[in-house]
């Protein structure tokens, strides 16, 4: 074979082997390390898997935040105004976390339907709402509007 062609062949082979191993690595890394967002209504309906990494987001229910006296454990509830999901988190909450504000918690759901959060997402801006939360609230609002509309029609 012509030496230049041979070199090119080796180059192509190298690229193919290297990129497929990179893609394999990516797929492997991706499998264990992505997590899906669930609105509270789906968690309450049992659609969210137990024991897997997921994210749940909504508004923090007013008056639901309880801190432990002896440790850094915090309990609170998030809601999309249709359903409520209790969350337990141990650690320091982000500065902008507050009752009546949007929040996203990442962690695993236990058998009792409580989210054992390993991370509570901070937002950096007063006006900013995590897009998933905004969408989940929007969806629940339109569902509720539909329901009340139907009720009105029935009466």
């Amino acid at each position, binding site marked *: 074979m012509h030496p230049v062609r041979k070199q090119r062949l080796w180059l192509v082979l190298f690229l193919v082997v290297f990129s497929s191993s990179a893609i394999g690595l990516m797929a492997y890394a*991706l499998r264990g*390390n992505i997590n899906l967002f669930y609105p509270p209504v789906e968690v309450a309906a049992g659609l969210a898997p137990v024991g897997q990494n997921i994210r749940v987001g909504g508004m923090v229910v007013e008056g639901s935040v309880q801190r432990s006296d002896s440790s*850094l454990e915090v309990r609170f509830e998030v809601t999309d105004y249709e359903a409520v999901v209790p969350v337990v988190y141990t650690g320091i909450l982000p500065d902008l976390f507050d009752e009546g504000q949007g929040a996203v918690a990442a962690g695993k759901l236990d058998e009792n339907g409580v989210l054992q959060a390993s991370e509570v997402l901070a937002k950096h801006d007063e006006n900013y709402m995590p897009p998933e939360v905004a969408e989940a609230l929007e969806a629940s609002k339109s569902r509720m509007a539909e329901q009340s509309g139907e009720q009105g029609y029935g009466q």
Partner: protein
Amino acid sequence: MIPELGHFALILALCLSVLLCTIPLWGSWQRNVTAMALAPNLAIGVLVFTTLSFACLTWAFLQDDFSVEVVANNSNSLLPWYYKFSAVWGNHEGSLLLWALILALWTCAVAVFSPQLPLVMLSRVLAVMGFVGVGFLAFSLFTSNPFARLLPGIPADGQDLNPLLQDFGLIIHPPLLYMGYVGFSVAFAFAIAALLGGRLDAAWARWSRPWTNVAWAFLTLGIMLGSWWAYYELGWGGWWFWDPVENASFMPWLAGTALVHSLAATEKRGLFKSWTVLLAIFAFSLSLLGTFLVRSGVLTSVHAFATDPARGMFILVFLGIVTGGSLVLYALRAPAVASRVSFTWISRESLLLVNNVVFLVATLTVLFGTLFPLLMDALGQGKYSVGPPYFNAVFIPLMALLVPFMGVGPLSRWKRDSVRRWQAELLVPGLVTLACALTLPLLHTGDYNLWVALAVLFAGWLVVGLLRDLANRVRNSASLGAGLRRLTPSYWGMVIAHVGFAATIIGVVLTSQYTIEHDLKMSPGESDTLAGYEFRFIDVGAVQGPNFVADEARFVVYRDGREVVRLAPQKRRYLASGSVMTEASIDAGLFRDLFVAMGEPVGVDGAWAIRLHYKPFVRWMWAGALLMALGGFMTVADKRYRRQRTVAREGLREGGVRGAQA
């Protein structure tokens, strides 16, 4: 009146940009020298009016003109003047104006500092940059006008700058980052100009290389500052989160690193020509993509600020035009510029190829991880997020693959080299490094850490490769000093940048492995010990700042009974917005940082949630990045990039004109 003047200047800048991207291009096509010679003047014109516009906006901020919407939303009369100044780019509209200003600066710099460039080439380069300028000035004017007024109903005071942005790091972080982002537009413009002309040679690489290195160095500094800011300002002591917004700046850096190295091969050996052009297009497209990701708010990010999706659409379309257009041009013209040079497998060319492949794959894996959630969402598959474990799992092996080759790189010869020579040069230093790597982790009290041993091995390997090469180069000189002086700035730049990379490896791995973090509940009078440092919580006091009130916790840190340092983290409440902010207190050191931050009050007895960190070698990471940037800047000082300017101007201008007329 002043804001209207700024608005008007911005419109004029847009008009001049339109002229800049049309007339010289038409001139270079028609071989019209007058039209081409207009390009530098138009570039200066764009800079003058963009600067005027930027100055007007700055004036509005400094004078507290709350009738201007962005000022009312992002400033406050209580804000210290330097934060009023940085608030100009602490918001969407202003930061876009800064983008446009920096682009105008780069364009003008190319116009002024490229006397050796043939006029045809210069006019094409400036025209391409003018086109990018049109895109961003139009974006600024039509979707996010910084001079929009709030009339009637001028607010009495502004809503204040986001407290997180009230910080020294954030005064200089965005301008440096943008210098890097936008700087790649120069490499991009050179690549497009070469494709348009169908001429791509070593001279082309020599012109475009210094610009690329400087842009890359700025981007390195910008990313470093961002990481440093996140570390001390976000209050949880992390320095890299693989957050989409961080990735947005990291991807152009990775592609830019590949570009810097492939340009070296193109300049020295006339190799990888079409590949280099593709990388230049890729690096700038990623800069635009980064702007899109940050400015559109399509991604959930711990960094995300309130944004407007309509604006994202504009950048996305612009990105499509720029990337699509240049790739079409590439497909049409690349065969004409392909290189016909051969090299053997054991050579510096191959090692640079490895660098390029690794950095490109790294870019693509980061790109994939960043866009995966968007892709799944668009396909209706649910809202995923890709966490740091993914990025670590793919990125760390890639870098580990890179380092063995990188150590040999400086020693290797162009065209043909031999493994036996490499063995002769590096076997002994390699064994010494291995011995160091095996023993040094023993210095740390606690378990033997294999990752640390690996990091020391890698960093040591890079350093001994460089030292060996330095020794080879100096060996034949009369004296050590004479030998060292004879080395070129671009060689020193490479050495410094590679040493910086080694320092970064040490910093990243040792910090990740040896950090001790305690989050705990503490009352005044209590103490906690990390790595031999006793943190004693003394009391909490109230502090009054210029535009905030704060609770301040006072800590005294002891080691072996001796006082080391007093730390005073704060929990601030900003008066205008009412938002709460954590201000960490850090004792920085070459070998360790001590970090204290306050959480929230817990319980009834005056206790607080407190975060205590012991972070060894964390400074090495940023010091390494600084060295990399320094190396990038140094290469530009090389003599071959600035031949006698006056002579070159006479000779080559004429040559360019003659060439154009021919």
